[in-house]
């Protein structure tokens, strides 16, 4: 399928190492943030989310950190695996409830076996 993100910043990580992907968001009024993983030819897949009243949330092998002071979001992936290779997007929601997401620029994660 078509490759997503041919001109995106790339992070190359050795298999087994931890990965950190960063994202800056623009609207201080945003109250909900999501990280999505997108593999080539597929739609974005939900990884983890966090609300603005939290600064850290952990999932399975993933952790999201939110710094509202500097409007920064990061995704940490522990023990990165080849299957983690994909483009990662952060997204913010600027209102509560069912409203559209605003996506940031993606980062391509390349895992070196």
């Amino acid at each position: 399928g078509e490759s997503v993100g041919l001109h995106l910043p790339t992070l190359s990580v050795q298999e087994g190492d931890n990965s950190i992907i960063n994202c800056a968001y623009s609207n201080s009024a945003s109250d909900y943030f999501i990280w999505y993983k997108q593999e080539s030819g597929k739609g974005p897949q939900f990884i983890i989310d966090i609300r603005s009243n939290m600064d850290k949330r952990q999932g399975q092998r993933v952790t999201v950190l939110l710094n509202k002071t500097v409007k920064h979001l990061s995704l940490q992936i522990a023990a990165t695996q080849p299957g983690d290779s994909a483009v990662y997007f952060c997204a913010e929601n600027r209102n509560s409830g069912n409203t559209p997401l605003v996506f940031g620029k993606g980062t391509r994660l390349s895992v070196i076996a």
Partner: protein
Amino acid sequence: GAGVSQTPSNKVTEKGKYVELRCDPISGHTALYWYRQSLGQGPEFLIYFQGTGAADDSGLPNDRFFAVRPEGSVSTLKIQRTERGDSAVYLCASSPPSGRAPNEQFFGPGTRLTVL
């Protein structure tokens, strides 16, 4: 259960033609969203529905783009007089009713539209 499905997966058309892209959301999801993703970019919002009505269509680029969701389930994105700049992947997402993880949007695989 089934996820969000989109048809066709690929659509090639000629400049000036009309196209329809279909989205089947997850059963029970009341909100449905259309996004457009150009190569190397993140998805950009086009329009979203709550039930049958368009709650926000501010992302539609011009009046050649239109979307419907007549029965509150399946949605069709319609593009008239297609232009080469319309070439992109069109993504559909749905989310549960408000009050049940309302902001988590589940995406379909997308329709890749190519306008020659």
